[in-house]
């Protein structure tokens, strides 16, 4: 965001080295995960902006505290000065933070209205999300673009969206409150039973797994089309990480949950590699991967396992993915028996 630039630049000169050091440690990443959308970048910019201001205030106040304690500690012969305060100083000390706070408020209000009040465009993809103990259900409106009709596509746990288009999630819950959290998109919204919420985002990158480095990467559509990407034939696996992250880590048995992930060739599955949307006969550089969908609101004893995945696909692959989904009566009954039955108004939100 442009309006942050001057101050950011100034503060960044002072603080960036320290922050870079913190973010670039050999251990696990403790920084904001790389974001995927314009709104996400705005939120990160605001975050960084507040961080700089806060670090400056932190250094000044804690520095003054430490200085006072050292400089004014009792010594033989020292006598404290006797004063009850000063209205002038008091006024300045209230006015300066007030100006800083006003500035943060104005920036936040602008971004908040951008993120939450300005609706998505007409061309958006609409998806219904139904939270349930302990999984995420998704419904796509199908060719007629109307929810609650026989051509709807329903999936559980795994969703897909097209890259480069706005996606609107109409969210609610059938039982308790969940929270629909897409960390990389900086989207989070509680799903309340009895109330339909709406969040939207747009992905400009496609998550893939780099087979050489065995790490996730985010590719733009152009980069994706230029590379050989395996869409099937590989399986995701994990094992306890052989490398300790620090001296404080206990023996292997206790580290069993600190994992190393990798994709391996699955001999039972047919290998399909695409480049620019067309099948090619070459060694893949990447495997198609996904973002994770998390539940961020306590929703019961298995809350920690309420995880879903979200594929971001090129437009043609997205259409193919939609077509490939099989109808499942049990899944459909959740939508028709609960949502369409009790909350028909949900289906008119589109």
């Amino acid at each position: 965001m442009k309006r942050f630039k001057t101050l950011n630049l100034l503060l960044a000169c002072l603080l960036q080295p320290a922050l870079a050091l913190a973010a670039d440690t050999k251990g696990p990443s403790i920084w904001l995960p790389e974001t995927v959308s314009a709104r996400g970048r705005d939120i990160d910019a605001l975050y960084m902006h507040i961080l700089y201001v806060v670090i400056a205030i932190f250094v000044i106040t804690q520095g003054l505290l430490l200085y006072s304690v050292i400089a004014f500690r009792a010594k033989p012969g020292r006598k404290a000065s006797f004063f009850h305060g000063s209205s002038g100083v008091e006024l300045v000390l209230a006015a300066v933070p007030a100006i800083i706070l006003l500035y943060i408020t104005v920036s936040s209000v602008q971004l908040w209205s951008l993120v939450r009040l300005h609706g998505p465009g007409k061309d958006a993809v609409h998806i219904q999300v139904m939270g349930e103990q302990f999984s995420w259900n998704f419904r796509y409106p199908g060719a007629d673009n109307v929810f609650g009709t026989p051509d709807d596509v329903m999936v559980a746990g795994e969703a897909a969206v097209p890259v480069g288009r706005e996606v609107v999630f109409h969210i609610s819950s059938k039982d308790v409150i969940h929270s629909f959290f897409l960390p990389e998109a900086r989207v989070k919204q509680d799903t309340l039973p009895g109330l339909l919420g709406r969040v939207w985002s747009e992905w400009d990158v496609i998550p893939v797994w780099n087979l050489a480095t065995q790490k996730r990467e985010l590719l733009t559509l152009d980069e994706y089309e230029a590379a050989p990407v395996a869409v099937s034939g590989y399986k995701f696996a994990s094992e306890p990480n052989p490398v300790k992250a620090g001296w404080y880590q206990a023996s292997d048995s206790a580290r069993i949950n600190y994992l190393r992930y990798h994709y391996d060739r699955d001999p039972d599955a047919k290998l399909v590699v695409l480049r620019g949307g067309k099948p090619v006969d070459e060694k893949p550089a990447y495997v198609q991967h996904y973002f994770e969908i998390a539940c961020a609101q306590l929703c019961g004893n298995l809350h920690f396992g309420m995880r879903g995945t979200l594929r971001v696909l090129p437009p043609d692959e997205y259409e193919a993915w939609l077509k490939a989904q099989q109808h499942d009566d049990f899944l459909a009954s959740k939508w028709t028996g609960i949502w369409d039955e009790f909350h028909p108004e949900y289906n008119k939100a589109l």
Partner: protein
Amino acid sequence: MSQETVDSVADYIHPEATDFFHKYVWSYDHKIIAKQYMWTSFLFLILGGTLAMLLRWQIAYPNQPVPVIGGLLKSAFFFDANGAISPDGYLQLGTMHGLVMVFFVIIPLIVGAFGNYLIPLHIGARDVAFPVLNALSYWLYLPAGVLMFTSFFVDKGAAAAGWTAYPPLSDAAGASTPVWGMNLVLMAVFLAGFSSILGGINFLVTIVKLRAPGMTWSRLPLVTWAQFITAVFQVLATPMLAAAGAMLLFDRLAGSSFFLPRGLVVGQNAIANTGGGYPLLWQHIFWFYAHPAVYILILPSMGFASDILAAFSRKPVFGYRAMIISMASIMGLGFIVWGHHMFVSGLNPVMGMAFMVSTVFIALPSGVKVFNWLGTLWGGSIRLQPPMLYAISFVSMFIVGGLSGIFMAASPVDIYIHDTYYIIAHFHYVVFGATLFSVFAATTYWFPKMFGRMMNARLSYLHWALTFLFFNLAFFPMHFLGEAGHMRRLMTSTGYEFLNPLAPWNEFITLAAFALGASQLLFMFNFIHSVFFGAPAPDNPWEASTLEWTIPNPVPHYNFKHLPTVYRGPHEYSSPEAEPADWLPQNAPPGHGGAGH
């Protein structure tokens, strides 16, 4: 009333009890009730802390049997058949840790114990306005606490819906495992709320009506001012908690549906008593209480820190009036910021905007207080005795907790960090870092008056150093986890690919938390040992100027033999009038000269 009748010890409001039961159990004496609160809440602090240790074990070593305890309690309470924490058990631990710490440790400790002990002494009174009501407050609180822990023993265990108890999870049948545990906990919180309201009314009347001659509003110690404003909070906000708890109990026991909307299906089971309810209603009512409650948890601590910083800097508090005005504005604003807990909960975004503005601006009075504390130290002659170290740490930790709050106030950023470890870091910096440090400050500072003995200074220094170190090692990295998107209340985060790399951090935090917990044994030992074997304390060991230090040790039953007349403010340190001493008691008449003359 003539001066003679007020001043006569014989006319004291209630006679000194002579039998054990009326002296130590059903006592009307505010000093004894304060100590009852203190011992009880310290006991609950140990229990609540133990719950946190178990939580941290599970997070660092998911599904590994808990050493020793797990082996002994297989399949009991929150343990599974292997002696590891079960999924239901984990939520019970988290829920109960939060509820116990807020309602049964911090509020009773800073308001029940210190408020009770200090208010009458600070204003020059012989007891609170309603001594019987005061006893009743404690005797509502203790059974409530017992009820709270009883819930662990009923079938399917204690409440497990988080301390915020959001319905329908806390409400709809089958949504969460516990049945009677949840009911008992609601009843316990209901009782504790009543105790809190009664205490608040009592303190308000006491401060308004029982101030000694000359104890004007602008001569009240800041501890008492803070207690006064806290009492207003308690009286106005806590009834909302009672209302919320009652409504939830009606839903659970009487088939009403305040919080249950139509068409609720848990698993395959349609919930019978649904329709017409609104889950967000609970959040509004709950946070309308619980946000002011956050200030109930911090305002008295601000009071302790203000008076202690002044006493050990040998200087008047910088901006006494500004301190009071900022506390009052925190109270005023505190009632209109509850919606910032609900930015992503389904609240209308326009409302979110209004709450964001009010929330950002509550940082202003807090900032004024920080600058005034710094101004109090500035130019002082600082004695780094244990209470002072704790009080300075309070300021330092409060700054961290306050600054991290700005991120949450900025609602677009809050979208991302809401319900992550960022929040946990933030409120532990405020409630543990700030409030508990001020409790340590207050305990070491007033211990000589309360128990007539000194706490061991060396042990206090050591406890301070270890607590400061391990507290920061345990809680500061939680900011990093929050930045990485690590959600709260996860029994284990290792199932998420994006959280798995954080497992070593969780292990590090757990080790620091264990060390932090172990460090508290030092304080516990120091406290208990000093109560019985500490060196006898002089009447005014810190050379402080407020009224409680003019009373001899041990404090007589009626506090003041003659009701004092107050001539000056509470922090007249290093006044030229006091030469050659550097402090003037509040009751020293003008022209009296230095203290101790």
